[in-house]
């Protein structure tokens, strides 16, 4: 466990080095959040009756999305890791007394947490300062808020497990770039990046909700806004848990057998 925390600290430190990048990223996210809000505002004002969620819930969704972008953006790939798998140099990891999958998981979690840690605060603050219904308001009861926090953690695990599954696939594929490009696009569409899932047409929406991508930003962000009512939370989080278990199991198994293969092939 200690090696994981040491690693974690290193990452956070490395992330802090890029102060200008963090500041810049934050202001970009603020502008993008504002543009999204303005856009949906136009639709909301034109016909509130066709709006599939409350404007307040949508505003909460957008500000949390901007603040915690690093939690679920699949395109934060760790290219050095993919490269290590591809070239076979990952076999050297066997010389360390740690489990490869656990190490990867720690890396992935640390990367995303450190990126979000620097940016989230100010964005949430600005979101909270905006007037209703365009600002970020806490309108849920404390127990629901607790569920939101757990769901955020679950999302982070699902996202990391998904990326690790792709890394482990590159043991077997000559070029994982295609899978990665498709994943990014699918996660954007089915995960609620292009538009929040309630805005998708029937059929596609139900499919998206059940897919692993639907277990990412979709659930915690909508719990916070109250769009998923308290009675729907257990089922939603159950789905997250289900995908977390499936993705971790698959990723761990593939990593173990892939590593064995890499050793036999001699890198």
């Amino acid at each position, binding site marked *: 466990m200690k090696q994981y925390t040491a690693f974690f600290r290193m990452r956070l430190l490395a992330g802090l080095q*890029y102060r*200008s*990048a963090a500041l*810049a*990223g934050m*202001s*970009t996210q603020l*502008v*993008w959040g504002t*543009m999204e809000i*303005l*856009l949906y*505002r*136009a*639709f909301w004002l*034109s*016909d509130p009756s*066709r709006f*599939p969620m409350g404007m307040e819930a949508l505003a909460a969704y957008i500000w949390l999305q901007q603040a915690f972008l690093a939690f679920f953006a699949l395109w934060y790939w760790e290219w050095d890791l993919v490269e290590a798998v591809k070239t076979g140099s990952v076999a050297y990891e066997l010389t360390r007394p740690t489990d490869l999958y656990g190490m990867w998981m720690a890396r992935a979690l640390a990367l995303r947490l450190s990126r979000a840690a620097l940016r989230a605060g100010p964005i949430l603050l600005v979101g909270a300062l905006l007037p209703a219904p365009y600002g970020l308001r806490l309108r849920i009861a404390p127990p629901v808020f607790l569920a939101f926090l757990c769901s955020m953690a679950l999302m982070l695990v699902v996202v990391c497990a998904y990326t690790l599954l792709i890394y482990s696939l590159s043991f077997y594929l000559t*070029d994982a*770039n*295609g899978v*990665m*490009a*498709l994943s*990014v*696009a699918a996660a*954007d*569409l089915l995960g609620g*990046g*292009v*538009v929040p899932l309630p*805005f*998708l*047409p029937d059929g596609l929406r139900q499919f998206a909700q059940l897919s692993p991508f639907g277990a990412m930003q979709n659930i915690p962000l909508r719990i916070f806004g109250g769009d998923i009512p308290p009675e729907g939370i257990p089922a939603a989080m159950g789905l997250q848990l289900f995908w977390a278990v499936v993705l971790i199991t698959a990723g761990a198994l593939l990593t173990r057998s892939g590593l064995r293969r890499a050793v036999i092939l001699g890198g």
Partner: protein
Amino acid sequence: MRLYLKFLSLHVKSALTYRASFLLSCLGQLLVTVNTFLGVKFLLDRFGTIAGYTLPQLALCFAVILAATSLAECFARGLDAFASVLSEARFDRILVRPRGILFQLLCEKIKLTMAPRLLQAALMLVWSISAGAVQWTAAKAVVLTLMILCGAALFFGLFLINAALCFFTLESLEVMNIFTDGPREYGKYPFGIYGKGVLWILTLLVPLALVQYWPLQYLLDRGPGWYGLLPLLSLLFLIPCTALWRLGVRHYRSTGS
């Protein structure tokens, strides 16, 4: 020009060496903007129209912005990715060759994976025309061309600012995304939809609305004819961009990296 074509042919040759990964990155680039269009379509299917625009009219609007950004990204990639040109010391190499600095930079990188996006823009344009978004006249066709070309020039100017700032910061400023990647994303709707404030900023400060919102009003018979000439006015924006670039080069040559 002949030299540029020579560079272009070498870029094509290089790209074809890794055919599979070239096609995959084409696909990746394309899926992003296809998703963007799907987002517009889902919302319009639900709401019918927005601010009086129909889906074919929005497709026209998005096609203009997509074509302009893709052209600029394809040919001015050396400016867009200037931080990497600097960090790999390729800028020093450019300085020791007897050709224009900016010209060599444009030759340095040509992003051929933008081609599918141009195709998407063309398809959206064709669909929008066949769906009768606009009552076409010869003048309107000219204005449409102006919108795309001046738009590309405008993005070129923005990339130039981005590159010039790299001389001072040595890393790419993510803030510039607001004005480079941002408009491609938000230009899918006419800028007027985001409210008066945004529209005026994009008219007077960073004149993107001069190649999108205002001339679009003319194309859709919602505004007077002189709106169609506004894209030409936007070219004035290139003056401060070039000035900043010159300043950046001077700074680099007095401080090194």
